[in-house]
């Protein structure tokens, strides 16, 4: 048997607007920019919904009706759900249908798409729990497999997943760590005995996610036949192909004009037309074979950039100071038991915010600039700190509601 495990990540941050120092103490509207503003969450969400969420979900549903064996795993952040509920509830309904058909599995993660695991374990637990409740409420299932934000993974996280009874955990299949192993197997994280490790086949994943429309790529254009041949060849190293990527690859990173939807549509047909080829969800994939080896990642590995580390979120003084100042407020924030204040604070833990402050490649004007909602990393930091200042201001002036 040869199996593809297609896992797609669905996320939209709730961006803070260009919140001025003159707003501090006067306005608690951090997250609602004008509709046509640069940080308008509503406008951006609706744009991506049209370009990606709707056409892609339709494609998936059509394929699922056609092939009862076609399965997909999705990780859906709480911040994505909040926005979909507000601006496009049909998306939630459609995903729920697919979950009920048993062809979509939902993966667990943090509600706020945060890196809390590396800063505050209590907060991390609280956010995973919040996410679990949200997923249960919207889709009626409880996640059995875990992925951390940006696939940020290390041995400690695997141990955490085992104590929380996850069947498996997802991570990047980075050569430097795998050595002679291929990512096309089930692994056991060091220190675990039950929780399995599934590793992203980053070459075959990135062929679609990053290179598909790149005309400078020697393999352009990527045809279904060619891609299937690559997968067949790669199966010689192990017969589980883990294709992990952003959901928005389809329609947003690779536009409809590139032919990405047709490619996927035909690929699903073509793959399933061959005897013994399958699509598996992440928990099915974790059980196709006993773990072939133990894998240890003492240092954190992510699926970001060529460095595969956390440097895009924590490499300059602005990022470090913003993160420190944020998490330092936590005890006081929770002590207020004020739902609005706690929610506002938690929305600031979203990792996209610190990513927008990244200056690593800033002068090259590459992906970091392209995906940013702010004019520069410096402005991103400036407005973030203003919001934080206002939260501190609210804390100072907080008077708890009288108990009845």
């Amino acid at each position, binding site marked *: 048997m040869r199996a593809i495990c297609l896992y797609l990540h669905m996320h939209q941050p709730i961006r803070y607007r260009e919140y*001025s*120092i*003159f707003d501090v103490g006067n306005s608690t509207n951090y997250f609602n920019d004008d509709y046509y503003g640069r940080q308008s969450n509503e406008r951006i969400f609706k744009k991506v919904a049209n370009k990606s969420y709707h056409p892609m979900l339709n494609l998936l549903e059509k394929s699922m009706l056609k092939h009862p064996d076609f399965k997909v795993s999705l990780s859906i952040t709480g911040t994505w759900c909040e926005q979909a509920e507000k601006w496009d509830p049909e998306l939630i309904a459609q995903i729920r249908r697919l979950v009920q058909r048993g062809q979509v599995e939902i993966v667990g993660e943090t509600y706020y798409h945060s890196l809390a695991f590396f800063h505050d374990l209590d907060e991390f637990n609280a956010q995973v729990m919040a996410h679990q409740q949200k997923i249960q409420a919207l889709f009626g299932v409880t996640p059995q497999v875990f992925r951390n934000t940006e696939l940020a993974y290390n041995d400690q996280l695997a141990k955490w997943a085992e104590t929380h009874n996850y069947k498996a955990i997802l991570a990047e299949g980075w050569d430097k760590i795998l050595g002679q192993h291929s990512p096309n197997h089930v692994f056991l994280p060091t220190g675990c005995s039950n929780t399995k490790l599934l590793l992203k086949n980053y070459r075959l994943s990135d062929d679609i996610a990053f290179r598909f429309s790149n005309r400078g790529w020697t393999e352009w254009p990527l045809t279904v036949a060619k891609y299937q041949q690559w997968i067949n060849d790669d199966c010689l190293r192990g017969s589980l192909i883990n294709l992990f990527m952003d959901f928005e690859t389809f329609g947003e990173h690779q536009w409809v004009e590139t032919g990405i939807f047709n490619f996927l549509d035909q690929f699903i047909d073509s793959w399933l037309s061959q005897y013994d080829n399958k699509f598996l969800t992440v928990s099915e994939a974790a059980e196709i074979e006993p773990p072939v080896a133990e894998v240890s990642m003492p240092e954190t590995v992510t699926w970001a950039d060529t460095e595969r580390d956390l440097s895009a979120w924590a490499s*300059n*003084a*602005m990022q*470090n*100071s*913003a993160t420190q100042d944020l998490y330092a407020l936590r005890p006081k924030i929770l002590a207020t038991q004020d739902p609005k204040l706690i929610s506002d604070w938690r929305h600031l833990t979203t990792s996209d915010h610190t990513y927008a402050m990244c*200056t690593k490649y*800033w*002068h090259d*004007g590459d992906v970091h600039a392209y995906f940013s909602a702010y*004019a*520069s990393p*410096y*402005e991103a*930091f*400036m407005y973030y*700190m*203003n919001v934080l200042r206002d939260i501190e201001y609210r804390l100072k002036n907080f008077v708890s509601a009288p108990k009845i």
Partner: protein
Amino acid sequence: MLGWELPPHNSGGLGVACFNMAKALARQGAEIDFVVPYLAQHPDVDFMRILSATSLDPIHRYGGGSYASMQIDAKIIPGLDTKPLSIRDVQKRYCQYVRKYLKTHKPDVVHAHDWLTYEAGILAKKQHHTPLVAHVHATEYDRAGMHTGNPLIHEVEQEGLMLADRIIAVSESTKRIIHQKYHIPLNKIEVVYNSLDENYEKSDYHFDTSLYNYVTSLKKSGYTIVSTVGRFTIQKGLPYFMQAAKLALAKNPRLIFIFAGDGEERNQLINLSAEYGIAKNVIFTGFVRGQKLRDIYSLSDIFVMSSVSEPFGLTALEAAHHGDALILTNQSGVSEIIWSALKYDFWDTKKLADEILAIANNPALSHTLKNHIQKEYHQISWTKVAKKCLRVYNNTINYKRGN
């Protein structure tokens, strides 16, 4: 190359830019004859031939010693009392010299800097079909704060830009002005940014804090020093900056603003600072240059370029060299190539105040900006400028041959 001034006989950035560009071009193998409108020694120039079009003292290169448009008007309005020598007279003599020069010389390409030399450049084109490259360091629109300015100068600019085979603009925003206000097709205009004078970096300048005890003591007690340097003219947008200073001071009184320079807006600005009730936090230094100017950069934490229109904006690179965090208007050319800076639109006083406060209140921001700009401004070099100019020359020459 046709220019109007070279250091040490320069009044502003034009001379410095021409000097550095010619030097870098010579290093790339270009043979340059540089025509200036006056007679003087240039001790630092051994890389090209300097030709004097007149025997005037450098002081008279802009006519009777000023740039005033009255003197130009005098040439076309009969009966108006004329001063001994107007800038038009100097230009005429400059042209005569170039005409004579062209009888014995046939350059491969003529590179003319700003409106003052365009007419002479056109002569070469007429006589030998020599390709003409017009270099725009500033337009009359910039000088007049985005108003029309002097119609005669505009006219000369228009003719030069139309007859030039290729135009070099010092920034994208200058390119846009040339396109929008002079109706030149975009594909005729190439952008080549300026760079920082290498002598500026090499100099053995040392900052002596003991000369500035007052400001240094303020800094020690937590004050942030915000400065700007330039001519106090409508082009620089300083009243907006003063308004932002007022807004910022209302939130954080530990700010000192240094306005270094002089010009026709000085009294208005002093008045404004009093009217806003912030005079105690605003320092006017008067005109500064050399060591004093460097001291101001060194004292400052933040350098603001508030220009309504700034073709390039070399002072920003100078301030970066001295370790300042930069705030630039989106209307300045330098903001197109500098990434490690905060930016704003010149009218957006609230945003400028926001940015000043953010740097003053967040050490991490100030540190990151200063750190990154240090690495960044070094990547801009005159050698790169020269290579780009050579490419423009060769393309123009080849194109002309092809026709």
